[in-house]
């Protein structure tokens, strides 16, 4: 990876340069994860309006449908189950996956990696 440079959009003069990996990492961090510029959400002054529909947890049919939409040859993170396994073994996996997925709602947790 070459030395990274940030240039002024008008004058094209170099305003920042990153030669070491640490500096490049900092520059990528600034580029990929921009500082929050949006105004904070306004505090609700009255209760939110009534819901449009009833929330339901994940069903087996939804998992089947999500698997049908998966790209089977997509690259996965090292050590993870490839999409192809879900596509070809869905009948075996879904009875086990369904209670785990539903537990993210009943226990109100989203498991960390």
């Amino acid at each position, binding site marked *: *990876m070459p030395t990274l440079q940030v*240039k002024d959009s008008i004058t094209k003069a170099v305003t920042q340069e990153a030669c070491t990996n640490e500096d*490049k990492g900092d520059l990528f961090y600034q580029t990929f994860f921009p500082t929050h*510029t949006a105004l*904070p959400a306004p505090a*609700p002054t009255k209760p939110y*309006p009534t*819901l449009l529909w009833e*929330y339901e947890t994940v069903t087996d049919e939804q998992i089947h449908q999500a698997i049908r939409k998966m790209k089977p040859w997509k690259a996965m*993170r090292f050590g993870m189950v490839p999409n192809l396994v879900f596509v070809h073994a869905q009948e075996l996996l879904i009875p086990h996956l369904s209670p785990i997925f539903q537990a993210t709602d009943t226990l109100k947790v989203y498991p960390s990696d």
Partner: protein
Amino acid sequence: MTKTLVLKKPGKADYTSPNAWRPIVLSNGYAQLLNGCKAEDLVLMCENTGILPPNHFGGRPGRATTDSIHLMVKTVKDAWRKGEVALLLCLDVKGAFLSTAVDVLKHEMCQHRVPEGHVEWLKRRLEGRQTMLVFDNYWSELFDIKDGLDQGDVQSLIAWIIYNLLIL
């Protein structure tokens, strides 16, 4: 915790610019499947209840880029037929997903009457994220992702549409 790989955007003239590189996070299959189920349900119910704007085409079932092109051509030709001048303004939102404010997204979801279950689930999913940047055999230190939606996540598209409902 995820690893964010930094890859070249193909066909760029100048790779000294950090914008010529893109962050890629490889998926966790289980999480991707669960997120896909939640996104599917949210999209379907948003379509059924009619809260999405009619002139938005991205990330919606039954709609494609070609539909938006047809609409644009029709609008231009309709204006010409009336002897009017058509003017087209194109805008590109920089880092759209990554710069999404999650607290504003939650507020917009509640304001548009999306069930609390979806709002709370998305909140749990987006909090406490950490990643490290990986390039040239270098691994950066782990850092917190304080805001934004995940690039390439199936749920980001519908979340982004809801986030922008007021301006679309």
